[in-house]
């Protein structure tokens, strides 16, 4: 059951490179990483590629296959058409070292900046008591295998190197969320930290990270949105606002985070200039290409997400309690006009019906 198949693989290093064509044998039941290994054993012994467990558990073999960030070991060849050329490129968001290997140290730097678990001081080892239902929320995020696919797909940094300093990325938002939801973590400022230091505000919830996560972690719904909501709660809750005005001891998010770093704590409202806003954009490369030659109104886009409303069906804030003069923009504060045409989206109400 073996056949020769066409592969295009990016070969090169930081000085440049290009896609090279290979005809390679493919057997039934194989995955893309198997093919890479066959190439190493035959035509390209020095083809650089990371891998470890080959079972979708370690997150080493992240690559972009036909433009989509995926794990090489989890991409079955049977998912491609018989005549389809398979194009394999390195992760686009990180600098190339050689061939399919990229320098992912950005992620480890962000990991080091994220404050660690703060254990309760008065509980001895062995005396930790937690209910299953309480640990499950954090456990979802601890499934993360650190493949960094969410990091590479995130448009805030994918083509915007300049955002990397102020933006930690989805992996570290769920790390903050995990600690925020940890029943025994003693730090209480995880959300404010995410907002002020990790650049949570840059995220405009396009859910690309959730889409590529090989562990199917609901990064956006269960991690990012609750973190954003809770930050919003504290900023815009009218009682908190009134209290802080009257008693002048309000611990507002902007001042509650202590940090040695200067200037990186830019909330999105003041740093829009460099941020590339997709507002629901799709990352299908084909659609992107079409978008560049004009707006393709038929492409599939995620449905718009309804805002969180209160019991009366209204937004939980009013002009009185809002921290800016005038009402908030109905399009979101991070969107400037005019929108570039390729970023216009239209989700047809019946797009799911066919």
């Amino acid at each position, binding site marked *: 059951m073996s056949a020769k198949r066409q592969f295009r693989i990016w070969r090169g290093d930081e000085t440049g490179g290009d896609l090279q064509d290979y005809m390679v044998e493919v057997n039934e039941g194989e995955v893309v990483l198997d093919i890479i290994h066959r190439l190493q054993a035959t035509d390209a012994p020095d083809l650089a590629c990371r891998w470890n467990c080959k079972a979708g558990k*370690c997150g080493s073999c992240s690559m972009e296959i036909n433009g989509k960030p995926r794990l090489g070991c989890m991409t079955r060849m049977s998912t491609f058409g018989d005549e389809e050329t398979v194009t394999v490129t390195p992760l686009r968001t990180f600098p190339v070292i*050689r061939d399919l290997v990229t320098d992912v140290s950005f992620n480890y730097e962000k990991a*080091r900046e994220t404050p660690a678990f703060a254990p309760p001081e008065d509980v001895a080892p062995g005396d930790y008591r937690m209910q299953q239902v309480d640990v499950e929320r954090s456990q979802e995020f601890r499934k*993360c295998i650190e493949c960094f696919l969410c990091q590479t797909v995130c448009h805030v940094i994918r083509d915007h190197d300049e955002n990397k300093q102020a933006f930690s990325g989805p992996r570290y938002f769920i790390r903050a969320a995990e600690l925020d939801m940890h029943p025994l973590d003693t730090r209480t400022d995880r959300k404010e930290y995410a907002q002020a230091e990790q650049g949570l505000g840059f995220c405009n919830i396009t859910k690309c990270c959730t889409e590529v996560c090989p562990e199917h972690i609901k990064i956006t719904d269960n991690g990012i949105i609750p973190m954003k909501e809770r930050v919003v709660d504290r900023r815009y809750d009218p009682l908190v606002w009134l209290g802080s005005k009257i008693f002048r001891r309000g611990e507002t998010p902007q001042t509650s985070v202590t940090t040695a770093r200067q200037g990186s704590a830019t909330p999105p409202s003041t740093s829009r200039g460099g941020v590339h806003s997709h507002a629901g954009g799709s990352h299908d490369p084909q659609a992107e290409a079409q978008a560049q030659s004009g707006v393709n109104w038929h492409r599939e886009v995620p449905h718009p997400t309804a805002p969180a409303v209160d019991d009366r069906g209204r937004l939980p804030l009013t002009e009185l309690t809002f921290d800016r003069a005038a009402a908030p923009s109905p399009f979101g504060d991070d969107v400037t006009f005019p929108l570039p045409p390729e970023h216009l989206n239209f989700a047809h109400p019946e797009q799911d019906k066919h």
Partner: protein
Amino acid sequence: MTTTTRIERHHYDVVVIGAGGAGLRAAIEARLAGKKTAIISKSLFGKAHTVMAEGGAAAAMGNVNSRDNWQVHFRDTMRGGKFLNNFRMAELHAKESPQRIWELETYGALFDRTKDGKISQRNFGGHEYPRLAHVGDRTGLELIRTLQQKIVSLQQEDQREHGSYDARIRVFSETTITELLLDGDRIAGAFGYYRESGEFVLFEAPAVVLATGGVGRSYKVTSNSWEYTGDGHALALRAGATLINMEFLQFHPTGMVWPPSVKGILVTESVRGDGGVLRNSEGKRFMFDYVPDVFRKQYAETEEEADRWYTDPDNNRRPPELLPRDEVARAINSEVKAGRGSPAGGVFLDIASRRSGDEIRRRLPSMYHQFKELADVDITAEPMEVGPTCHYVMGGVEVDPDSGAAFGHVRGLFAAGEVSGGMHGSNRLGGNSLSDLLVFGKRAGGHAASYADGLPARPKVAVAAVEAAVETALAPLQRDTGESPYTLQQDLQAVMGDLVGIIRREGELEDALSRLAELRERVAKVSAAGGRRYNPGWHLALDLRNMLVVSECTAKAALERQESRGGHTREDYPAMEPKWRQVNLVCALDGDTVRLIRKPLPKMRPELIGLFDRAELAKYLTDEELADFDALVPDAGEADNR
């Protein structure tokens, strides 16, 4: 040439080679002892093979069954290892693993919980009580992530105190050590290269902890990753240390055999613990035919009794699917050889017909997910095809049980985890490896730190040794007439898989040794195409000599040991022989050749051997040993009921 080669130099107090569970735990301990510590990781930080451990970490916390305690755990470990274990290691392991697990919670680990909020524990093959702390079926990932995050938190402390994350503990990721450097018989440093750039790096350090894991990459069907090339085993041998028990390799009974691309990936034993059963091509639940006499008392004889055990373990005996791994692997092998195997050469593991789809998805989430994604097999709807897979090496560096210091004629070398030998005897119980990493990782790290403290002067690295190491490392790139490293690896895997596999015969082992000798000639002339920058062919060429020497140890020891025990099965000597239980086979290096030494096993202390039932010991001990036992423990008959 060597004078022009750039070598980056670093000074550390303790260098830990390996960044899996044992390495990270050792590094944490050395750093907590105030030592400047380096962690060398062959992969990226946090990708180590430990992530593959699914079942859990065995520790007698008694959270689920309060009758559990360290004595019971000790007994299970010794029984599983067929009494060949170093008793002191098994004792320390059983005593200390609960503390090591609880400690992880203070680092932020989130284990699954019992109803009263304690760490939940699950049943596992060979363990008398539910004992494995777990997180679904991704316990290894939890362990590695927790230790990784603890190291980050120590780095954050150093950042606050010294202004640099790397002040006292630094991770060198994607770095391979090719040589340990000595000053006389003392460790003076370690030499290696950065995989990314191919640049060389020299660590000058008085103490080195080996935590490099196992040797499985020498086998064709293996659950092990590319990193498992026996680096630590080979480094230790070349530095003058010794290896023990190298003939004992664990073949996991249930690796995937279909589809071919995922051959070797393990199906956790908890599938069997949660109700999965093994069937042959005739649909027969065959494990009932393979319960050995020594286990007859603990295992059910009928399907009805076995099925009752899942809900009422106190009044029923265990299903035979939960026999120790080696028994299950041998049973599967026999079924396949008798022509009752599955189409792909394994047997069927069936949980689909025994538990509801919802329950399977809840109890085995990542297993379900893995099969669905990798093989498009729905384990809630159809049985899996499984067979024996090279999984774990029981043998390793011969160490002092308390400190992890290597024996032989080298000082300053420590080992922990899979690379060390003795703890698991001839067969490891599932779940004992994760706790082994923590218990002995901590010990090795701590003792390496105090060894470094006690040195009057730092050993010096000899320039000539560094030059020789550079030359050896560059040699494959400079040759262009030799064979491809990939071909050589395939040939090595074929020799080991076919001739030194799960069932061994004298003739085949002799054949293997002569083929390994031929391979040695070819490996000495291997050539790698390309340059130094992230060149996997070159990396493999350098790993090959490690794989080769370790394979020689395994083949030699397997030929020498004329009995079957645990992870070593000789078709020509099918029985377990009490005389052989008194012997450890120790491998040392004489120049280039592996030399075998027979060494008597340390004698168990009276209060420990007294924990066993005389009738059980009678299956393992010689008559003289039994006479000694009777003299020591006059009321031995009651000991069983503790």
